[in-house]
């Protein structure tokens, strides 16, 4: 079980992080578009399509990664008061009734949708440049599969937590602590405060340190 959780965490993180870099491509692509439009009066035919494809791929691919780091938004005003065991029990049930049906539908419906697009090698209608979009529609399926794999890991996490009474931490958080220590040699300590709060739901910072033991 633990082996599988690690595997899923790594897989999700790998996809999430690789596609996270599309933000840099997006920045330079868009800036280039503005530059050539004003400096050379020659707007590109691809920038608009590029922007939403990179954005869409970025967030869809990061879905599973975000789930593995427990960073999806949740109303946790009751949840945070519970013991880990109770959290895990409730979550286990909710994963089964809410998570898997939705994600399965995403995979199958996305499969049909992308397949149709592949069958005639659909291109974008936004510009005459003929930007292909079938690969972009395939992202739905891949994101769904990643979520499914990560979802199983989250269920295992719940089961483990119900047994042991504490959450199994995500791999990256261990690294992060190391990174933080490594950083402390070079950066002033002040900077760490800013990182602890980047857990987007409303944890207070003291709790955030405890939260690191959570998925």
């Amino acid at each position: 079980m633990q082996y599988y959780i690690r595997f899923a965490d790594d897989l999700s993180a790998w996809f999430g992080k690789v596609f996270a870099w599309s933000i840099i491509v997006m920045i330079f692509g868009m800036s280039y578009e503005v530059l050539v439009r004003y400096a050379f009066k020659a707007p590109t035919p691809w920038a608009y399509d590029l922007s939403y494809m990179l954005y869409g791929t970025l967030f869809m691919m990061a879905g599973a990664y975000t789930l593995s780091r427990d960073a999806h938004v949740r109303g946790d005003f009751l949840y945070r008061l519970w013991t880990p065991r109770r959290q895990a029990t409730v979550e286990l049930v909710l994963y089964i009734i809410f998570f898997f049906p939705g994600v399965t539908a995403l995979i199958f419906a996305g499969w049909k949708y992308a397949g149709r697009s592949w069958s005639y090698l659909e291109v974008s209608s936004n510009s005459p440049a003929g930007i292909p979009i079938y690969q972009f529609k395939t992202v739905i399926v891949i994101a769904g599969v990643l979520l499914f794999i990560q979802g199983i890991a989250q269920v295992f996490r719940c089961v483990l937590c119900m047994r042991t009474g504490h959450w199994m931490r995500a791999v990256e958080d261990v690294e992060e602590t190391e990174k933080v220590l490594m950083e402390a040699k070079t950066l002033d300590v002040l900077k760490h405060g800013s990182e602890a709060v980047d857990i987007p739901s409303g944890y207070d910072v003291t709790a955030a340190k405890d939260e690191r033991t959570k998925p």
Partner: protein
Amino acid sequence: MSDPLVAVGMLLILLLAIFLGFPVAFTLMALGIAFGYYAYFDADRMWRPYERAVEQGADSWVIAEHWLGGFFNNRIFDLFVNQTYSVMANDVLTAIPLFLFMGYIVERANIVDRLFHTLFIATRRLPGSMAVAALVTCTLFATATGIVGAVVTLMGLLALPAMLKAKYDIRYATGVICAGGTLGILIPPSILLIVYAATSGVSVVRMYAAALLPGLFLAGLYLLYVIGLALLKPGLAPKPTKEDVGEHTFGEVVWMMLTSFVPLAFLILAVLGAILFGFATPTEAAAIGALGGLLLAVAYGALTWQRLKESVYLTARTSAMVCWLFVGSATFASIFAYLGGQQLIADVVTGLDMSPLMFLIVAQLIIFILGWPLEWTEIIVIFIPIFLPLLAHFQIDPLFFGILVAVNLQTAFLSPPMAMSAYYLKGIAPAHVQITDIFRGMMPYMLIVILCMVLIYIFPQIVYWLPDTIYGARPI
């Protein structure tokens, strides 16, 4: 049970699941599909291939396959994937990761301590000068980054010890940091306004133009309060001693401002100017802003590989958090409307025979209360769509409503029990700073927020002046 009642049931289950703390995006997705399956259930259509196979006398395997396939022949799946794709190809939401990245990189650009120090020197002759400096730093920094938690904790580590050392009152010192840091979700270019625009269909550009003055107006009210209180009760904020401040010539102060305040202010103004005057789309301006943020980090010698990586990964995570919420809500909302839940609510509300003002007050009160337990993302993506169709009946402009919501949601960060700003601050403050002190410190600012909303209602010009001046009179 009639369909509209089913829709209400769907909403109640959603609320229950939110209370149980399950990630909201997936709850929305599952409920949308499950209730959509019910709504679009059409046995004739779904099993038509099966019937045909039976008529043609196909072999039993094919018949079984068609029978099973019938279950997946529901139109909800097409709707779901189409809605998902429309979120992926949404040209408003594209700006979100770019602005997030700009925020993360500016946050790591080593700029905030420089900024606070400079402003403290520059305002040293004002009453409550450190609080004024903290407020202006918070406002500017929060505007550039839009990340409330980061601003509050950074300032809490930087300005709070300085203020406490200068014998400032604890409540006075903590309140100003929490209130100032929260302004980041209101003053453009803020993510909240993009999310509202994407939800309501109001143009982002107009939204930004409309939010600028109210945001600055609220910041101005805060500033008046900070200075006024320091004048009335000098004990709260003792004047800084000579050794705290040191001697600075006018030229030195100008140079300090040029190297800290001006670049950041310029970055924000350039991004906003490009958007407001139509030189670039919000997405393009956000990209340029992100590039500017990168350059700023380079200029301050703060751009390391490590920090770049952090910014990139955090951007991906936070974008996923916001945008998956849209993936879930897109399907949920259309099914809710299809089942007639929207109409039912509209009928009930219009049946109450409220005046527009009453409706506005009730709506804002509901949002205010939702802000206690929930975060602004959930409120805007899930609950605002319920109010939006009612606005036309009461002849309320969705733009105006949106600005009021954005101001109102300031309180979501400031009001107990889930005042995130207070918890962030408590997390890094010295042990003798009590959470109740922070709450008491924030209370006046909540009253100011409410005052600000009343003033905006009485003088709607605060909202409309800038968009009307730039784009001409509003379409009614």
